[in-house]
């Protein structure tokens, strides 16, 4: 667990853990330990994660092809008549072109100068859009942003936003398609009807329609 003086012990723990464990641990401990944790310490802990995302000097940023390497040796891909794999494999990404920045291999720094009152510009923009002001809310927002950058596309997002009760505010601010429909009940998902139908009471009695309705999550 996170101690309140996270000098060396905390670092050792994080170096050995997977990224999901790190981030989950931060969220859990951040919430319980916040009252006694100096704001600057929280940033220190966060930076352990953030520093991994920095580009080192001389690093080619277009060399990362997400999943592309798998296709090169994919045994399930079809073969052409000469027995050679058919694929449209490219070992470069479009980092510079997509971001419209000149090709550079200079080191980046995304950890220096972050304080609870002055978070990175992208996070401050989101905080402003969501209209958050308390230090806790600002830091939670920063944490969730960081988690989405770290675990993008890994299907944890709905659960993260639902359990931190930030789903509705974020969906309304950023998901124009769902504004009209999203409601308080969406913090919980409906229990499948097939599940309710297959449940029996301890005495072997099937659930009545009323009992099934009572077991269902509110609003469904």
């Amino acid at each position, binding site marked *: 667990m996170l101690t309140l003086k996270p000098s060396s012990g905390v670092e050792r723990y994080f170096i050995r853990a997977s990224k999901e464990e790190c981030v989950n641990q931060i969220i859990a401990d951040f919430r319980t330990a916040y009252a006694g944790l100096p704001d600057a310490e929280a940033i220190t802990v966060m930076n352990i994660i953030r520093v991994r995302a920095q580009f080192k000097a001389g690093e080619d940023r277009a060399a990362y092809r997400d999943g592309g390497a798998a296709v090169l040796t994919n045994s399930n891909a079809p073969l052409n*008549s000469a*027995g050679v794999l058919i694929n449209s494999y490219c070992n470069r990404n479009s980092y510079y072109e997509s971001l419209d920045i000149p090709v550079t291999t200079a080191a980046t720094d995304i950890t220096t100068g972050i304080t609870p009152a002055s978070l990175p510009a992208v996070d401050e923009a989101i905080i402003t859009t969501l209209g958050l002001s308390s230090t806790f809310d600002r830091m939670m927002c920063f944490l969730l942003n960081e988690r989405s950058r770290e675990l993008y596309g890994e299907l944890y997002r709905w659960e993260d936003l639902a359990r931190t009760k930030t789903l509705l505010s974020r969906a309304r601010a950023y998901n124009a398609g769902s504004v009209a429909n999203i409601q308080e009940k969406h913090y919980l998902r409906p229990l*499948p009807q*097939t599940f309710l139908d*297959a449940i029996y009471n301890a005495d*072997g*009695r*099937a659930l009545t329609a009323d009992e099934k309705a009572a077991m269902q999550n509110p609003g469904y």
Partner: protein
Amino acid sequence: MWNVIDEWKYSTNQRETLRLLGSLFAEVKLPLGIRYRMNFGPDFRFYRNGYYNDSKSIVRELSAANASISNTKDFSYTIDNLLYYDNKFGAHTIGATLLQTASKWTSESSAIAGQGIQVPSQMWYGLGNLTSAQLTSWSSGLTERQLASYMARVNYNYGNKYLLTLSGRWDGASQLAEGKKWAFFPSAAIAWRLDQESFLDNVSWLDQLKLRLGVGTVGNSAVKLYSTKGAITQVTVPFGTGTETGYSLTNAVANPELGWEKTTQYNLAVDFSFLKGRVNGTIEAYRSSTKDLLLTVALPSVSGFTSTIANVGETSNRGIELTVNSNVIENSDFSWSINATAAWQRDQIESLMNGREDMVADTLFIGEQIKVLYDYERIGIWQDTPEDQAEMALFNANGSQFAPGKIKVKDQNGDYRIDGNYDRVVIGNTSPQWTMGFTNTLSYKGIELSAFLTGRLKFIAGVGEGLTGMYGDQRQLDYWTPDNTGAEYQRPFMSEAGGDTYAFTYYKDDSWIKIRNVSLAYQLPTNLLDKVKINSLRVFAQIQNAGMLWSRNNYRDSEYNTLYFNRGIIPSRVLIFQACTTVRAFGAYTEAILRR
């Protein structure tokens, strides 16, 4: 490029079956009128399926040619040991039979498939030329099943008029659970040959009239083999920097209590034969009750399993069956015969797993038939009228998405909320109440033409949801538009195919009568075949699934529940070599059939 015209050159799917059946017996006469007989019936079947798809075939679309071969070898045998005792005291005839029998069935299979075949003529015969990376799948397997039985039977006959049969058998099936493998099945039957009575002596047109009454219990142990054992499957899981092989339970939890399903049936029948055998048949009425039905039962998925096989509840069934055969014309060269059957049945669930509790997840309901459909009740289509708009607003306030032209379902409890807990009902039964068959056979010398008509009546089915815009080739639908408000199907709308709950509620009567089979056969004359030592050679062509004579829903093949008809014309020949010798009381009979 490839095209369909050349496809037959490029894709081959060849199935070959070799089956050898044997029947051997030995019989010995023992003192005191006792006979001993042993039967041995081996059955060997070898099935081979090879396919080859060239890279120019439609399935491969210029990617590497693939091929596979799979072999299945089935061997089963039955050994019977029988003791007979027959005796006659005046008008009393007594017969007794004791039987011990054992059978075993073994199925062994292997298959391999690969891609990158370099020499087309090798098809599936050169898979050894592939590298291990080019092999796409390989498997092998073994399944075994055994049945052991003991049976005792007594026949009693008085003056050839009154007949009585009592029997009892004990069966043990290997696929059932430990301690539940064995069960006892008794039966009794009495019959009265009315035609043997003196008061019917002067009825000249009557050949045979027999009244039968029987009661008996039969068992069913047809469960998936090893389903009492708790199968595990191999899974690959990411672990550390690579993957490791792990084992996991399957979705179906094993039931270590699984036993026999037992059906006790009472039947009353009349066998008749009139006009020197020109008309004969049977009328039979039955009533049965089945206990401990073998059913797949849904489990709540949080248990880690989605289903199990269990002995569930009790059902009853009753029905009447009629069979009539007639040789309308019977000359030395030409004959015409008719065979007709009709049956009515109705089953009902009496109790279920926990007594009189419905099992909604398995759509089993006390007092209903066994196979029913349970869903929302479609009662029409919403219209663009002020009354309907007002109704729809009440539903839509509770989460429905009704609009003019969409399906209207019945709100069973009237709370303006369509809800799976309150508003689904039993729509109807899916097993036909009436089944019938009608065969006409005309033969002239060695040529035989026969047609088989069959039908099933009075049942419902989901007869096609009619989702406009979902399928590439959609039949013409009568769908709702503001100008066609009386339409049968709802209006097309976006996301309809993606999950409109009510689009699948088109349940209707699906009765049908079809021409299942028309066949034309020629039996080669025996005097010709005798010269080449062939027992029988029959050449025939069949039209399978010829078409509907009448059906409620003419766009579908209701028998197979498909939206297309799989018709076929199949030319075949069956060649039978038989070696048959009888030496005193020993006999041997083998039959080999090669089909390709």
